[in-house]
Structures are given as structure tokens and as C-alpha cells.
């Protein structure tokens, strides 16, 4: 390993391991696990609601805190999907498939153990990969110009909206809704006012926090009141978190395969951990020995929990690569983390590794520390987290509204924002009812204005000519990739039909 890299990482550990920062990491991990376990709140919306603290807490500490929440929610989310089968995070949906069946057949403990240890293994390996690759990619990314950045963002838009989710049309609709929301307010380049309708509150634009809290937290409460009141979820019994020798033997190859599948998917601007977790599930099912294969979908196969959990954590960690090196968020939580950085006036992008190298390395070091903390928090203390599942739904969702108020009102002390939050909550209910994905809204909202700036800068370079995107090899290559991403699934579907 490069000696310079090693020194920077050690420097990061020195920053992350100060008692104050360790406390922030621990608080983040605890809070993250708790909200991961509780249905109704994801890491994105939790970080969004806590964004007002960026006014008071120093940048490194709050990024460590937020990363702990992001990570902790992944660990906590698997507990819920195994015991309750109501996955809060899309990434843990697959865990629920086998994990819930294992828990039904009295093996909840083993399922929780393999998912916690698998998350630890995958998270640690992925953090090592981030440590090794991110600085290299950042060095390369410095050479990219506005046309390439614009194409990268276009790729992120395409994959987030058109590839993930069931319907390209509904995904694109969400994306353009997000884009439109992002354009409201003062244009950064020309200081022109756009789409404010004369409302003063819209001048500064619509905050991503407000949209995230409205679309996720508030709409969850509203949707529950409207449709989910009579739905009953039944809680499985906890058993000892002990894995037998054969269970270890079946788990570890699945962890490694899941990690390997998850990392590349997190890195590319294709966002989300749905694809790698489903791929990992399919792989484990295919590779399982015949006597274990029949456990899939019946009594629950441990590989089907171990692989996807590892893939999920590995992909989540890998989303930090495009976020830190390119400033491109590929998941909702990454988008919120980006806006936290923006609150500090820190521009995420290739320069981050030089301008804020202390912060970046402390953040990476805190991931190593956070993984160890979470393993300790999750296995022995699992009984504590399970108790959270017994909180009745009504006060839980009503309580979430109080926290939503803190996040939204605390941002700029305007009750107008609370009305807007309510409106977005109602929009979120409609979107959920008619299967419009919400992630493209957030990604469009935060990436839209950035992409616009890159596009206009690129056109300035090209003296107003669009050929600038075709004349540069990298941007042309990216455009071809985007075309392939859009066309290939259709070709395959057409081929299958004919």
C-alpha cells in the first residue's frame, strides 16, 4: 500500500478516535440502529431531520454522526425484516424473504447473527476498497470537465429513474417532478428568478430536507392513517444469536460473494442496493447444495440471508465512492449527505480529497470504527432493539411528526415550510398508492441544479454548440453507456417476446 495513503488513513483514525468523535459515532450508530428497527423512518429522512444541527456541530463530527446513522440503519433494518417482515429499507427487502421464514421456524437468532456478522464483513471489506479506490478515482476525476460531469449526472438520472423500479415511465415522471422542484427559486448562474409565482419563500429554492421529510416521514404517517390501519404484522420470537458450525460454513462464502456483487453496484451511478441484493439472492439460490436448495422459500435458507445482507452493506458503503470523489449522490441518503456537506460550504467532488482531506479520512476511519461498534451493539444487545418493535404504531407515527417539525421548521424558521411539508406528504401518499418511486424525486431535486450548471458551463466551453458532448471521448463514451442502459432492457424484452 502506498505509504502516503497509509499515513492519511492513520491521520483519519487519529481524528475519528478522539473521545468526542467516538461519542458522535456511537450516538449515530445507536440512533441509526433504532430508526432502522422502527418501521416508518429510514436513514435518509433521519439525517434530513437532523440537518439543522449543522449550524452548531463541527463538520467532521456531524459527518461521522450521519455516517453512523446511515450504517446503523442498515443493521437495524435487517432486524425488523427478519422479525417483523416489514422491510423499511428497499435493500433489506430480500433479507425478509428468507430471514422471516427462518425466524418462523425458530431460527431468528441465527438469521440475525448471519446478517449482523455478514454486514460487518461486507462493510469492513467495502471500507478497505473505498480506502484504496476513492483517492485513485478522485485523482482521475480532477481531469474531468463540465461535459463529462454532465454526462455522468445524466447517467445517474437514467439509472435511478429508468432502470430501478417497475416502470420506466413512472420513474421518469418522478425524476422530472424532482427536477422541476429543484429549479424553483433563484438560478445560480444568471440570478434569474424561476417559478416562484411571486411567493417570497420560494426565492431560495425548495430544500431537499423539506422534500425528503414530506415525501418519506409525513407521507408514511398519512398513508398509515389512510390505508394501513387494519394491517397486522406479527412479531416472531427471538432465539439465541448463536450460529452452528454448518451455519458458519454456509454463511461465509455467501458473505464474500455478496460483498463482491454489492460493491461495484454501489460505485457506479446506478444507485440503490435493490439490484445487487436481488442478484445475490439469485446467485445463492443457484449455488446452494441440493439439500439446502429446498430450504429456500420453505423453512428459510441461511445463504439467502447472508448473501443479500452482505451485498446491501457493501453497496451502501460503495455509494460513498461516487459521493466523495465525484459529488454525485446515487442514493437518497447519499443525496442528503451531500446537502449536509453543502450546508458547510464544502463542495463534494475530486477536490474534496485535497481541500478537506482531514474530513474525508476521518469519515473513512469512522466507518471502520462504526462497523465494529455496530457488531457489538447488534449481537449482544439485540433484545433491546427487539423491544422497540413493540411500540404501538399510532403514537410512533404521531411522534415522528414532532421530529419532522423540528427538521423542517428548524431549517429556516418558517411556518410556510410546514404547509409545504404537508402538501408534499399528500403527494407522497398518491405516489405510493400508484407506485411512483420517490428516490428519483430526491436525486432529481439535488442533482438537477448541479447538472444544469455543468451543462451550461459545458456549452460555454463549446461556444454554445452541443457538439461539445460528442467531441470529447469520455463524454461520448458516457453517452453511449446511457443509450445502452436505456435500450438494452427493451431489446432483451423484445427478443424474449419474439
Amino acid at each position, binding site marked *: 500500500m502506498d505509504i502516503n495513503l497509509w499515513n492519511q488513513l492513520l491521520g483519519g483514525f487519529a481524528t475519528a478516535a478522539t473521545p468526542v468523535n467516538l461519542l458522535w459515532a456511537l450516538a449515530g450508530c445507536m440512533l441509526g440502529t433504532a430508526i432502522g428497527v422502527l418501521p416508518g423512518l429510514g436513514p435518509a429522512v433521519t439525517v434530513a431531520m437532523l440537518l*439543522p*444541527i449543522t*449550524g*452548531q*456541530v463541527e463538520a467532521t463530527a456531524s459527518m461521522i454522526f450521519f455516517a453512523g446513522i446511515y450504517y446503523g440503519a442498515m443493521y437495524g433494518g435487517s432486524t425488523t425484516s427478519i422479525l417483523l*417482515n416489514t422491510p423499511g429499507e428497499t435493500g433489506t427487502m430480500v433479507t425478509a424473504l428468507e430471514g*422471516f*421464514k427462518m425466524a*418462523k421456524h425458530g431460527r431468528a437468532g441465527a438469521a440475525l447473527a448471519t446478517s449482523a456478522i455478514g454486514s460487518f464483513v461486507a462493510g469492513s471489506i467495502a471500507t478497505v476498497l473505498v480506502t484504496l479506490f476513492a483517492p485513485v478515482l478522485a485523482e482521475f476525476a480532477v481531469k474531468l470537465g463540465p461535459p463529462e460531469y454532465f454526462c455522468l449526472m445524466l447517467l445517474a438520472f437514467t439509472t435511478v429513474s429508468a432502470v430501478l423500479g*417497475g*416502470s420506466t*415511465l413512472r420513474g421518469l*415522471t418522478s425524476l422530472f417532478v424532482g427536477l*422541476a422542484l429543484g*429549479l424553483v427559486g433563484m*438560478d445560480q*448562474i444568471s440570478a*434569474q428568478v*424561476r*417559478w416562484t409565482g411571486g411567493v417570497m419563500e420560494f426565492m431560495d429554492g425548495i430544500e431537499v430536507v423539506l422534500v425528503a421529510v414530506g415525501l418519506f416521514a*409525513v407521507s408514511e*404517517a*398519512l398513508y*398509515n*392513517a*389512510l*390505508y*394501513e*390501519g387494519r394491517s*397486522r*404484522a*406479527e412479531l416472531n420470537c427471538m432465539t439465541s444469536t448463536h450460529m452452528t458450525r454448518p451455519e458458519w460454513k454456509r454463511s461465509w462464502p455467501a458473505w464474500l460473494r455478496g460483498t463482491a456483487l454489492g460493491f461495484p453496484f454501489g460505485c457506479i451511478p446506478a444507485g440503490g442496493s435493490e439490484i445487487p441484493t436481488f442478484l445475490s439472492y439469485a446467485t445463492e439460490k443457484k449455488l446452494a447444495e441440493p439439500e439446502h436448495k429446498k430450504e429456500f422459500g420453505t423453512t428459510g435458507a441461511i445463504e439467502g440471508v447472508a448473501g443479500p445482507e452482505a451485498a446491501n452493506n457493501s453497496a451502501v458503503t460503495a455509494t460513498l465512492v461516487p459521493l466523495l470523489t465525484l459529488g454525485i449522490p446515487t442514493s437518497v441518503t447519499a443525496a442528503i449527505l451531500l446537502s449536509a456537506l453543502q450546508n458547510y460550504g464544502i463542495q463534494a467532488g475530486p477536490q474534496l480529497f485535497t481541500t478537506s482531506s482531514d474530513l474525508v479520512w476521518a469519515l473513512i476511519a469512522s466507518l471502520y470504527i462504526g462497523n465494529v461498534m455496530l457488531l457489538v451493539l447488534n449481537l449482544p444487545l439485540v433484545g433491546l432493539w427487539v423491544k422497540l418493535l413493540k411500540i404501538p404504531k*399510532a403514537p410512533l407515527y*404521531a*411522534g415522528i*411528526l*414532532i*421530529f419532522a*417539525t*423540528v427538521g423542517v*421548521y*428548524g431549517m429556516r*424558521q418558517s*411556518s410556510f415550510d*410546514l*404547509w409545504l*411539508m*404537508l402538501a408534499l*406528504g*399528500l403527494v407522497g401518499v*398518491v405516489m405510493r*398508492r*400508484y*407506485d411512483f418511486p420517490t428516490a428519483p424525486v430526491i436525486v432529481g431535486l439535488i442533482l438537477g441544479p448541479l447538472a444544469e450548471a455543468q451543462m*451550461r*458551463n459545458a*456549452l*460555454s466551453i463549446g461556444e*454554445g*454548440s452541443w457538439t461539445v458532448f460528442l467531441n470529447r471521448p469520455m463524454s461520448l463514451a458516457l453517452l453511449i453507456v446511457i443509450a445502452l442502459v436505456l435500450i438494452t432492457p427493451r431489446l432483451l424484452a423484445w427478443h424474449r417476446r419474439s
Partner: protein
Amino acid sequence: MQHTPDGHLIQAATVNHRPGQLAVAVGLLLASACMAWGATHISSDAGYAGVGPNFLPWVATLALAVCGLLLFWQAWRGAYDNMPEPSGAPHGDWHSLAWVVGGIAANATLIERLGFIASCGLCFALAVRGLRMSEGKPGGAWHQSMKDLLIGFAIAAPVFWLFTKVLAVNLPALTATGWL
């Protein structure tokens, strides 16, 4: 999400989603019409860039209009690609929803008058009543409502103190002391 005892997903009874789908498509078309009207008021001065500040607004407007038309067409034919049956009950409990919406609206109206703790406590009491009713339980008589209100205060107060006193987030108080 609903499940049978052995963990299988219960599909909600099939509902006719066509009116709702059509309404969503019409809503999108109306929104894009408003956006188009707004976009005509944005300057097209391009400067050196070749496209002005009105370029992307027009792209978003036209794209949303096209999406709206396609969605309308899909809903009209009754063919939506890959739409799974939404989770939860086939028909909405609008009465319960009204209580929760009322809670948030009351909060937005009163937060600057009553301060954070009182206003959020009220929001909690109204929302928890709606959510409880959605579960098929009675909303409760006035002493239940008082209890809800007290629980709301008990949650809101520590949250308020934590965020204003420790984390220096600005939230409105009723009194000048900043504790209530």
C-alpha cells in the same frame, strides 16, 4: 403490508385504480400547464452558454407533459406496466386521514403563536387520534384526548430542550425564557 400466518403476502382485494390513475395523469398535465405558463416569464438570455435560464424549465415542462399524456393513455386503456397492487386496505379511511392532516395543519398555523411544545403536543394529540381510529379503535372521550395531549407535551418538551439548548437550533418558544 398484510401477511398470512406463514408469511405470505395477502394481496389486497382488487380495486379499480383507473379513476385514480386518470386523476394523477390529469394532475400532471395541469401541473405542466402551470409550469409552461411560469416558464414563459423566465428570461432566455443565454449569455455565453448557448442556453438561457429558461432552457431546463422548458425541458422539465415538456417532459412532464409527455409523461402525463402517456400515463393518461395507459390509464385510459387500462394497461399500466408492472403496477403491483398497493399495500394496505383497498379503500382509504378518509376520516382518520383528516385528523392527521388537521394535526399538521394546526401545527403550521399555531407554532409561531403557541410555541413549539404546545403546538407539537396538539399536533401529536390530533394525529394519534386519527391513527388510532384508523386501526378501528375508538378515538376516545375527552379524558383520553387530555392524556394524548400530555403525552404529546412529554415528547415535545425534551425534544425542544435538546434542540434549542444543546444543539442551538432555532425553534419558537411561548415565553421569553425559552423554556416553554
